[in-house]
């Protein structure tokens, strides 16, 4: 991608290329360091976990901590629940944000500005303030202690709508106008002209939704009562043990296991994600 796009004029910095690469490498190491420490500590015995200097490559690698995780919690059920919840939320958000973002960017209607303001304003309310009323609403719908109760309220996404609006705004207006002149109605213009161009933008909404909801703790904690409905982050908590007496290696092994799907999505979705973010940043 970087080759296809015109980048800033190069070699204008006082820094030589090697100094730049060295600087970036240090930053990358600092960024990944904690993650590497987590993975390597999960492969060590608890007794070695505080060794200084930290052993990046464990002297006595052991998968015992991972066995411990599978012994102590029902990883498969928790993962199934987490997958269902996150996948459906991601798909739902792609649909709602794609449609609403398009409407805000490319369609004219009354109350557009106040409606958009309303959507944006919902980003500004901390979850902790509204969780009890949300619980009451869900109860009136019979959705407490179900996975649907986690999924449905997460369908509308202020951030996703904002992102998709920016994304559609970044597309040339002329395209739609040309199609209109060819006699296409508003739906046709969306369906055949803009929607196909929006895929990278939708990908970023999907991937960000996945990241956020895969790691979500507070909503599942409050809304889910039955153990069968727990998601992975809730299950991992029990690894910490009563009063923090759980083995650090097992706790970290749980963290690493829960990281795997997010990393997989990251790897698969990285390209569209980058491209999506790339375009969202442009506000024309």
């Amino acid at each position, binding site marked *: 991608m970087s080759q296809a796009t015109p980048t800033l004029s190069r070699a204008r910095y006082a820094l030589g290329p090697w100094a730049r690469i060295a600087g970036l490498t240090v930053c990358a190491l600092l960024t990944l360091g904690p993650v590497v420490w987590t993975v390597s500590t999960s492969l060590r*015995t*608890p*007794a*070695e*976990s*505080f*060794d*200084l200097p930290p052993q990046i490559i464990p002297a006595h690698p052991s998968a015992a901590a991972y066995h411990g995780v599978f012994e*102590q*919690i*029902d990883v498969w059920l928790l993962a*199934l*629940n987490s997958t*269902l919840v996150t*996948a*459906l939320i991601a*798909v739902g958000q792609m649909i709602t944000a794609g449609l609403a973002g398009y409407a805000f960017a490319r369609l004219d209607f009354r109350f557009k500005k106040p409606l958009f303001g309303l959507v944006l304003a919902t980003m500004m309310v901390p979850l902790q303030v509204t*969780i*009890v009323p949300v*619980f*009451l609403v869900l*109860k009136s719908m019979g959705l*407490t*202690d*179900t*996975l*649907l109760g986690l*999924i449905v309220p997460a369908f509308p996404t202020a951030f996703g709508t904002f992102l998709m609006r920016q994304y559609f705004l970044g597309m040339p207006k002329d395209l739609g106008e040309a199609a209109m002149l060819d006699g296409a109605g508003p739906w046709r213009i969306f369906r055949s002209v803009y929607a196909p161009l929006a895929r990278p933008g939708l990908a970023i909404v999907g991937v960000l939704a996945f990241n956020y909801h895969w790691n979500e703790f507070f909503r599942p*904690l*409050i809304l889910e*009562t*039955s*153990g*069968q*409905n*727990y998601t992975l982050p*809730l*299950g991992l*908590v*029990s690894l*910490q*043990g*009563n*009063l*923090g*007496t*759980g*083995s*650090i290696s*097992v*706790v970290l092994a749980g963290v690493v296991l829960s990281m795997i799907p997010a990393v997989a999505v990251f790897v698969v979705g990285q390209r569209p994600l980058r491209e999506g973010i790339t375009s969202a940043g442009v506000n024309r």
Partner: protein
Amino acid sequence: MTDSLFSRRALLRYGAYGAGAAALAGTAASWDRLTGADIPGRDDGSLVVATLGSAFSPAGVRALVDGFRRLHPDIKVRVNAVQAVDWSDFFAKILTQIAAGTAPDLVYVATEGVQLFARHLGVPLDRWVRRDAAELREYFADVHPSLVESMMYEGSLYQLPIEFNAADMYLNTQVLRRAGAEFPAGDWTRDDFTALLRRMKKASDSHFTPYFWTNRLWGGVVPWLFANGTNLLAESKAPGGSWLWDAFYPADRRRGRGGGFRWTTPQATDDRVVEAYDYLAALVHDGLCTRPEGGNGQNLIGVFSTGRVGVTPAGGFWAGGLHLAGMRADGFDVQYFPRRHTQRHQFGAAGYALLRTSKKQDAAWEFIKYSARRDTLGKLFTTNQTTPALRSMLTADRYRETGPAHWRVFYDTLDRFPDTGPIPAPPQVAEVTQVLLKHTGTALSSPGSVGPALRRMQGDLEKAMERDV
């Protein structure tokens, strides 16, 4: 070129349709999962028991439910093991359910919440305890009255304690050896303690801190206040309770017992409180202990088990934790908290509280009784991550694999020091705890801060205690 492009597009489109169809099919297939319809025993009028998930293992919870079903096939029961990080998460969830009118029947409550629940939510167990006195005689004979008293509020009993943890001192035997120090005697003083820390420090390198502790209500500053013969809040006992003491405890063991604790006037600027803080500040200043971190002490197990720390306050729950962290049974040992004006210890206990909103109170009482039986607890507490409330369960066998050698200390903390008492937890406990932790943090974060911090603590405590929660 155009053809291949077209077919690629078509392929992509059919691929997308296929994926969409698969997603729909998947959603439909997992509909029962999404609506929770596949969970047996949901909304069928079961007795609902909420426990703090990290306290019991999943296997323990299964055994708990199965055992109850065998005993009472007519009572449907469901255990919600809430996987909360800490007490306040757990509480957030229970409160939300109460607000929505979907509260559980029984809630597992620790000392921190005993009076809060008793005052606003709980049902006294007195009438059932009286009714089933014969059945309970064995239980009470096996449980120290201090634990029972900590579950009383204004003369009534609200919970049967099934586990507890008193703050004793854990010592790393390897560090002791390195310092050439003897294992301390049971009646050691605070000065002995300080001397031991100095000795340990001298014998070790810079990556070692003799004493490490966590800034929390249980096992933080409070044990030092108890040893100084004082408390954060003035302590007295409510009248009443003799109905229980007279029925279950012999005269010598019921002496001085009342109807539960009352924690009232704040006394953070009391000379003995100030002295305890000064002592801890001096330890920090001399590099004998770290500034306390907040939180649930996750760091502690790791640094203690690897010999980076010599001494730390903990209860029976640590034996299992250290074992899990790979420590050998003889790698550590436990002794009483050092004595100063007194050798009174502090503890926290837990049991099931019955909620007023429950429509199945008789069935719930059956569960409470069942949960306190020796065989039930035997299945629940297999890993020594807590101390059973039943004295007879503390055996050499139980501690053979995990240690410590002086495991008797755990229960003797109650038996040998009958004035050992619960952490101060009035109904305003949440605010009291926050005020305590926050000003303790400030008092010890820089030299010369003890006085001002305690004065602010006193002011905040007074405000907190004025509130009717």
